[in-house]
């Protein structure tokens, strides 16, 4: 394999993503784990940029690093056990099994491996010669496909319903009139903050 500048950058970004991903699950300090998670997500954004998908790269930074990881850090900082360093996960065996299975499914779908093993209709048939299979090449295409019934309309609407349900649930949980026992309904200004 030729060593080009691209492959060097790819190796560095992969090492960053995988290494910090490993540290996320092995780190005993919750806060450190969150920081490694951010680093890992950053590596993924770099990989997107390397694949000339700047839109996905920037969305990765905006959504995952700028919003989700910061919310995780926010939650950890509000937890009293921030500095507890002996956190143990008793479910790590199950987690390893799920991770391995997920990896196997991804590999079998994205590479022609399963075709070689004789299973039809399993691999997504992406190949270097025919990159047009990948939908959503430009931003405008992506936007149109998002509301096109032939493409992603259903998942888009399902995600909207899910978010809506989460919003209503959050509003219900913090609403003092409903959260309190109906008989002991008291003034609702005290619990607000």
């Amino acid at each position, binding site marked *: 394999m030729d060593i080009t500048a691209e492959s060097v950058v790819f190796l560095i970004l992969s090492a960053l993503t995988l290494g910090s991903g490993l540290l996320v699950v092995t780190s005993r300090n919750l*806060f450190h784990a969150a*920081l490694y998670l*951010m680093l890992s997500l950053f590596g993924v954004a770099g990989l997107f940029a390397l694949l000339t998908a*700047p*839109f996905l790269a*920037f*969305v990765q*930074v*905006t959504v995952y*690093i*700028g*919003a989700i990881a*910061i*919310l995780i*850090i*926010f939650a950890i*900082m*509000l937890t009293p056990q921030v500095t507890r360093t002996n956190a143990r996960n008793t479910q790590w065996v199950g987690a390893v099994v799920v991770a391995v299975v997920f990896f196997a499914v991804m590999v079998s779908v994205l590479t022609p491996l399963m075709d070689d093993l004789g299973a039809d209709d399993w691999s997504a048939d992406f190949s270097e010669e025919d990159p047009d299979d990948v939908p959503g090449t430009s*931003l405008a295409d992506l936007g149109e496909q998002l509301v096109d019934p032939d493409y992603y309309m259903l998942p888009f609407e399902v995600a909207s319903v899910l978010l809506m349900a989460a919003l209503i649930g959050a509003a219900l949980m913090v609403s003092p009139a409903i959260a309190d026992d109906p008989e002991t309904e008291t003034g609702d200004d005290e619990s607000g*903050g």
Partner: protein
Amino acid sequence: MFGPSESSVVVQCASSGACTVLHAIFTSGFVFFVLLTGFAYTTLLERRFLAALQSRVGPNRAGPFGMFQPVADGIKLIFKEDVTPSLAKKAVFWLSPVIKVVPAIIVVAVIPFGPDVAIPWFDGKWYRVSQSVVDVNIGVLWLLAITSVGIYGIVLAGWSSNNKYAMLGGLRSSAQMISYELSMGLVFVVPVMLASSMSVGEIIEAQNKTPVLGWFVFQNPLAATILLVALLAEVNRAPFDMPEAEQELTAGYHSEYSGMKFALFFMAEYIGMVAVSMISVALYFGGYHFLWVDQAPLLGPVFYGAKVFILLLVMVWVRGTLPRIRYDRLMLLGWKVMLPLALVAVVWSAVGVVLLDEIGQDFYAGMSVAGIVLFVLGSFIWLSRAGRKPDISGTEPRVEVVSLSGNSGLATTTLRAVDRVIRAPAEVAERIAARETPGED
């Protein structure tokens, strides 16, 4: 006029590898230089202008008008002792000022400072180069992504200092920035819709279809106002400087920082001011377009600089005028006022784009003007009828926007004039309201 003649060869810079590299190096260096100089002199501008607003003199000893004061401050900070608390998380403690500064600098990479210019080179050809570091086709998304990374600098600084005050400062800032980022992201959508492009260069060009009146601030003043307020919150400037509220948190997230590491936070704040002014100018105030820029592209950076300077003055002015908002009020403003208003602004522009397609330019311009008048009158009526004082009173007309002592310097006269201009529409509306009220009773 200076430019390539009929016979000369003009090459697009992007098609030549050497030109691309040279252009990237030169523009990066230029942006870096402009931002660092901008940082130094924004501190001086803030101190002098704030002093003028408070009837003080301000630093005027080092050099003419205190021009060398930033240099003196820089030398002082370099030689100060750099203390690291013994129980701080060292690696994060050292990294967080860097994480704060770098996004503030690189965020302006996608903003062009002028139209493309043709430059002669030694091989006899002319090269057409853009006046931005890089003009990516999703520049607006870049602005959003990079500004959101800056939060980490503050959060990590607060956490790694091992100090309760610093940690509270970091917590507050993360909550504040997440809240205001929503409104900011929504009003970033407005120029994207109007220009039907996410490239900052194309957004600026789209605002030049009609000189000056084509600026998006005239299409959607509500969105421009929300953007300015949200960006103030994003760079933690007064009245949104909760993360470092001195009375409550000593110095907030940078309590434990000293020497050059403190200077980096200081630098990030002022570079952030310059950067967000540049973003607002690019998205809503026509970018580099004004007067003769179309004929002389090299005038672009000059007008751009002038517009950024005016916005910086406004930011300092806001700090000199408004008191800090209480923290719960700040969250209330972000979620219950700014976010719904931002949604209204997006709908406003979406309807505007459809109307423009359906009924043509002239009628649409008339509708736009009517909408703006409605916006100004509506906010005036809302502000004057509200039972309590509003949380931000930047547009409240009854307040004398500038109150100064009786001296008659240049600054005083200018501020008085600006004050008159700002209050004029409100006074007219007030007179109309006063004439109508007796009839209703």
